[in-house]
């Protein structure tokens, strides 16, 4: 703005010299700009580091170009065997036995690195299930609350309380949500069973069965419900904004034609607000997928060698089994095992996949929102 655009070769002799004030302004502006770009560069450096370290693990030069093994195998302990000729074999527990048998006396040393072998199918499936159930619960509760706030509520004490609650819920630390989930869903939520456990808070006989408040244990359901309450404030706020953006005229026209209030909402408001609600909710999904603390005590396990539907409960296991989840898996890999050359594959691979997943969701949300904003203008 103030810097004259001099050609680099030829100094313009007639250019006005910068006054002190202009220099000062320029300096202050540069400091502000510098601060802004520090943030951008720090973030870019983090992304770059993960991409550089992580992409070679997921992608490969040969067809099909993606390391399918990493995405389709369950995590397992990595065995590194070395024979006396200096050959190194990296393998899973079963392979280790075979190679040991084959090598016999020729085996020099064996190292085992927990969780670092195989792939990350278990954590991916777990995160997927958690997010899926969570989003169903959160959207149902969130949109209905938003409909109340924008369509039904009258100014008064109740709505003030609701708004205050939303505001405060948004500020509750995620680990406290974890405690809440543990206290409510894991230990106290109602289940239908014929044989209630001793620790149940309350047992209500229903004749054919009993409703026992004994909790859902650490399970997908507990974790997903906890996560749903973590993102509930985000969903409500976003949904309400979208509902309010629908012009008043739509509702007035509908009511003038004799529609009931519910018909008005269902036919003339929701259809126009829905795209916006869904796109904004994607950001909520990204957040739910990224949270670790709320699922630590409610759903996640450090290690599991079965997929949720392979357990005793069969297909119902997708709700009642505890699962591995990507963020918790990353925590386990980062905090519980020593860092070395063999653990890096699992670490950077999981972080890369996780980041790609979350960032795709976030980008999709931003792009869709921009597109919608251009489409719906009233």
């Amino acid at each position, binding site marked *: 703005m103030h810097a004259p655009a001099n050609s680099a070769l030829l100094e313009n002799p007639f250019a006005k010299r910068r006054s002190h*004030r202009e220099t000062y*302004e320029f300096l*202050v*502006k540069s*400091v*502000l*700009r510098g601060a*802004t770009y*520090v*943030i951008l560069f720090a*973030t870019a450096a*983090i992304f770059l580091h993960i991409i550089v370290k992580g992409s070679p693990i997921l992608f490969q030069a040969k067809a099909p170009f993606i390391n399918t093994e990493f995405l389709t195998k369950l995590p397992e302990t990595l065995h590194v065997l070395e024979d006396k000729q200096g050959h190194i074999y990296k393998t899973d527990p079963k392979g280790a036995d075979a190679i040991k048998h084959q090598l016999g006396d020729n085996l*020099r040393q064996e190292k085992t690195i927990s969780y670092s072998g195989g792939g990350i199918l278990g954590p991916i499936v777990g995160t997927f299930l958690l997010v899926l159930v969570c989003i169903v619960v959160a959207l149902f*509760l969130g949109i*209905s*609350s938003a409909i*109340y*706030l924008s*369509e*039904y*509520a*009258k100014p008064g004490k109740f709505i003030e*309380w*609701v708004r205050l*609650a939303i*505001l*405060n*819920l948004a500020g*509750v*630390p*995620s*680990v*406290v949500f*974890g*405690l*809440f989930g*543990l*206290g*409510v869903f894991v230990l106290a939520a109602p289940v239908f069973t014929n044989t209630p456990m001793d620790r149940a808070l309350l047992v209500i006989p229903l004749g054919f069965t009993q409703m026992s408040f004994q909790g859902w244990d650490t399970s997908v359901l507990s974790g997903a419900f906890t996560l749903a309450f973590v993102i509930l404030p985000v969903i409500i706020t976003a949904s309400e904004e979208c509902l309010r953006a629908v012009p008043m005229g739509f509702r007035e026209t509908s009511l003038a034609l*004799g529609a*009931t*209030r*519910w018909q008005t909402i269902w036919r003339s408001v929701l259809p126009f607000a829905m795209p916006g609600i869904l796109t904004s909710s994607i950001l909520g999904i*990204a957040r739910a997928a*990224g949270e*670790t*603390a709320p699922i*630590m*005590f409610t759903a996640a396990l450090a290690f599991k060698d079965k997929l949720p539907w392979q357990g005793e409960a069969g297909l119902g296991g997708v709700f009642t089994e505890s699962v591995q989840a990507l*963020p918790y898996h*990353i*925590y386990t*890999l980062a*905090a519980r095992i020593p*860092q070395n050359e063999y653990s890096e594959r699992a*670490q950077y691979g999981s*972080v890369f996949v996780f*980041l790609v997943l979350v*960032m795709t969701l*976030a980008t999709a949300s931003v792009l869709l929102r921009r597109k919608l904003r251009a489409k719906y203008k009233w």
Partner: protein
Amino acid sequence: MNEDKPSPSSDFQGLIKPPSFFGLRVDRQSLIKHFFTGSAAVTILTLFLIMYSLLKEGTGFLPTYQFELKVYRQAGLEFCDFIQKPLTENTALLSKLNRAVNADTATLTQKAQARRDALFLAKGRIEEKTARLREAVTEALETAGTPPEKLAQARQALTEANATAVAEEAFPDVYNAEERRQIATDLTAMQPDAAEPPAILKTLSAEFTEQDRIAKEKYAGFLEAVEAFEEATEPIVELHDGIAELAKATKEAAVQQHMAEDAKAQLLAAAESAKTPEAKANFLKEAEATSLEAIDYKGKIEPIVAKLPEYEAMIPPYVAAIKAAMEKVPQKGDTKEATALINEVRKQLPKHLTHAEQSPALMKAWQWDKPIPLIQALTAFLFGGDWITNSSWQDFYGVVPLLTGSLLIAVIALVIALPLSVAAAIYTNQFATPREQELIKPFIEFIQAIPSVVLGFIGISVVGDLIKETSNIPWLQWIPGFPVQERLNMFNAGLLLALMAIPTMFSLAEDAIQNVPRAFSEASEALGATKLQTVFRVIFPASLSGVFAAMLLGLGRIVGETMVVLLVAGNRIAIPDFSDGIGTVFQPAHTLTGIIAQELGEVSKGSSHWQALFMVGILLFSISLFINFVSRKVVKRFQLPKI
């Protein structure tokens, strides 16, 4: 749609019957409305459920902790800790003196030690690289009847590998050219069956031993003083250990008895609800069999208290010995570090001696049967300086170390994040070109989507090493706290948390600046102010309340963040040592959120530890409510007029 119109169906109540709903004739419209009202009420319900679940598990903590503290007192553990306190202080002072001596002797031995250690390390690395071939040679030697040429071959391979490994080594410049040559030949010639270590290593070791002897001679007085300092405590330690054992035995008996009481109560309760008379009788019989022998605290405490005169008699000699030892400590060390440490010890010594002298008086005033009120359990939790769990002596749940850790990290993160995000907000809103805005805003919003566990991982794998390496750069040594001891520390965590808080603070601050009415800047510019003057004297001050609210909400995010601090803050449960000044930030710490995440998974449900963690949750919840409350007040109080 806020104004309420009577819904059409209720107007025509007489004409149209409300449709049937599960056989009941109810007004469908109002039913729908109630459904939505109910959903909205879920938010309030959730908030109450959070409070309920925290309180339900947490409130049991106070009586449990009260009981534990009562046993701590009645069994005499508290009495023993009166003696333990001066001993702990002595240990702390002693370690400082030791560090001072080491700093001084290092002036003489440092070089020789560096020369020896570098070679040891290099030897270790080379041996690790050639381990396989070394083993091959060993095996060839051990197997009877190995042909000599095969052995020679193995030896040759090892020598070659050694040579390659030596060539790869970057030896520090503490050796001269001649020594380097000798190192290279000696290390290359290493064989597993060599009777002696490489000659050069022996030379260097001898050199160090000699230097060490000279240093010990030179600082003989200082060393003696330190030894005397340590020896002065010996009789006290012996006495303490003797009575501590007695106290612990009493405590264990008390815990056993408490468990038996619980078991009996459970049996009786089971008997109450037993279905058959036989079962009831069985339960009662079992309950009867549980022996509940009252513990004779008074009798058991007597031998412990009886030691008091003996202890009292030990104090004057102890004080005299310490004073005599301090006489022998030189006034000034030969290095800056030693001098600083000696001065610190001299400064803290009078306090330590008064503590030691006062301890018998405190012990005399102490009563084993003084009751502990419930409120004391709460104050011990809120203001207690120790968080000690799974201890063989006594568990303490004092939240101060965690709170200071959380707050210090939050302050570090705020100090970094606030200037950056406010500057970025001002720049983006006032100076950036529209194209730059298009880039900056979504980019910073994007940061929000990075999961915290990923940032924590980056902290462990990248930032930690980066900080440590930077702190070893010679020309940066003026920075307090450098060189950094721990890779994972509060600064590292603060740095990453700052990045996490920036999006929240940036977008709120940017909104606040955006919301300053146009008329303000127009008026300012009309008066002839430059852009810079307008921004810093008109727009920014007008948006201050919003920026302050942004800061508070950012703070809330930082204090509540779990994964980053759990992974990166270093997890040392201790109140940071503030004597380092600003350098304190490079110490590891533990946090309120981190302790819950780390320990809850490992404790048994319902134990005092479990309850204590829920109490920490209550504290965190209150902090977050408080921050929200203050930020709302601020925004309301300083709202700009609408123009």
